[in-house]
C-alpha cells in the first residue's frame, strides 16, 4: 500500500518521487549510523536499556543565599538551566577543553578542509573562556526568568540515594559554580 503512494507520486511528480526516495535512503543511513543531521532524525529516545544506579545527581541552585525550586519555573526555563548546567559540568570535567574540537579536526581533515579549521573551532566549539562567561550568562538568565536581581549564585551538585520506599536521601554535595557580584 505504501508503494502505491510512491508509484502515484512517480506518475504525478517525478521530482518529488526522487526526493522522497533520497530522503528515505538517507534516513535509513542516519538511522544505521545512530546520528542526526537535520532533517534526518532518530526517535530512539529512552530505547537504550537503562540500569538502576546506586546514586543520582541533581543540581541545586542557591540564589542570594536562598535555594530556589527550579520546578516552579516554566518547564522550558527549567530545562534550560538544568541542561546548560549539565553541559557546563561536562566541560568542567574536561578542564574546559571542549572534546568536540577533536571531532572537528577529524571531520575537516577527512574532508580536506584544513583551511577552515580555525574558523570552525571558534564557531562550533566552546573556548576555555566558557568557565568565566557561563556564570555571567546564568545570572542574566535567572534574573530574566525569576524577575529579580541576582547578587550571589551558587550551583551545587547534590548526590542522592533512594531508600526502600523510593524517597531520595541526600548523601553528599559539592559546589560546581560560585558567583558573586561584589
Amino acid at each position, binding site marked *: 500500500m505504501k508503494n502505491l503512494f510512491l508509484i*502515484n507520486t512517480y506518475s504525478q511528480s517525478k521530482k*518529488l518521487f526522487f526526493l522522497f526516495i533520497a530522503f528515505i535512503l538517507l534516513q535509513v543511513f542516519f538511522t544505521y549510523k545512530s546520528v542526526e543531521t*537535520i532533517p534526518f532524525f532518530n526517535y*530512539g529516545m*529512552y530505547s*537504550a536499556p537503562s540500569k538502576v544506579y546506586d546514586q543520582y545527581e541533581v543540581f541545586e541552585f542557591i540564589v542570594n543565599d536562598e535555594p530556589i525550586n527550579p520546578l516552579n519555573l516554566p518547564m522550558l526555563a527549567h530545562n534550560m538551566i538544568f541542561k546548560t548546567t549539565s553541559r557546563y559540568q561536562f566541560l568542567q570535567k574536561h578542564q574546559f577543553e571542549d572534546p568536540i574540537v577533536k571531532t572537528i579536526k577529524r571531520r575537516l581533515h577527512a574532508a580536506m578542509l584544513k583551511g577552515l579549521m580555525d574558523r570552525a573551532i571558534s564557531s562550533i566549539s566552546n573556548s576555555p573562556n566558557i568557565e568565566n562567561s557561563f556564570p555571567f550568562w546564568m545570572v542574566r538568565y535567572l534574573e530574566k526568568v525569576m524577575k529579580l536581581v541576582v547578587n550571589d549564585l551558587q550551583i551545587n551538585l547534590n548526590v542522592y540515594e533512594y531508600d526502600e520506599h523510593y524517597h531520595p536521601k541526600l548523601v553528599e554535595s559539592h559546589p560546581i559554580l560560585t558567583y558573586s557580584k561584589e
Partner: protein
Amino acid sequence: MSKDLDYRKRLGYMVFGFVLLSLVYRWLSGALLSQLASPVLVSPFADNFFWAYLFTDIPRLLSNHFVLALLFDLFFIGLTIGCLMRVRSRLLSIVLLIWAVTYYVIYHNYVGHHGHSFLGIIFMIIPFTMKGDKTFRITWEAVRYYLCFIFASAALWKIFRGSAFDGDHLVATLLSQHIDLLVYKPESLIAGIVQFLLNHQWMIQVIFAIVVAVQLSFLTGFFTKKYDRILLTLMVLFVAADYLVMRINFAELLIFGIALLPFASVTNHRTTDSPNELSVS
C-alpha cells in the same frame, strides 16, 4: 474558488494557528531568542547541519544582540500571522519554514539538548511551500507517513535494542527521570503517581508494554487510513501519558495530528490540475 479547494485553506488555518499557539507558549515560557539572555554555551553535538549553521555565525549574531533577537522573534510571530491571513502564499510559507528551522537550530544549540517536540512545526509547514495543489497533496500525504514513521520507529528502536523486553528498563528510567521531581516537589500529584508506580513495579511493566504496542500500531498507517481516528486518539493519549508519567512535553508534536483528521484526507477532493482523484491508500 471552488469548495474543494478550500481544504488547503482549512488545513492552513489549523497548521498556522497551531504554530502561532506554539510561539505564544514559548514566549510565555521565556524560550524565544530575545528571552535567552545572550547565551554563551554552544552544544551542536554531532549534527552537521548545526555545525554549518554555527559556522555562518548567524546564531551567535542573533543571540548576542538583543535588538536583533527581538526583531527575529517579532518577525517570526508576524510571519505566522501573515501565513494565517494569506494561507495560499507560498513565499510566506517558505520564509516561515526558514525562520522556524533557524529558531530550532539556535534554540536547541544553546539549550544544550536537541529535542524533537518542535519538529512537527517544521514538517507541517513544508506542504504549504509547494507550488500547486497536486504537489501540496503529495507532500501532505508524505507528512502523514512521516508521523507514522516517528511512532513506529520509536517502537522498533525499543525492540531492536532489547529494552522492550527488559522488565527493569522503565523502572530505571523513572528513577533517573524523576529524581529532581522527588527532591523538589515530593508532594506533587505526579510525584505521587511516580512513587506509587515504583512501589508497584508490575504496573510499570504493563505500562511499558502498552507504550510499545501503541507506538507499533502506527505501522498500520503505512497500509491504510481506516484507523486514522484511532491513531489520532492514541497519539493524544500518548502525549498526555508521556507528560504525566515522564514529564516530557510533546504537545507541540500534536500538530502532526492534523494530518490524521478525517476531513484532512486528500483522497476525496479534486483540483483544477486534474479531474482525476489521487488515490493514495
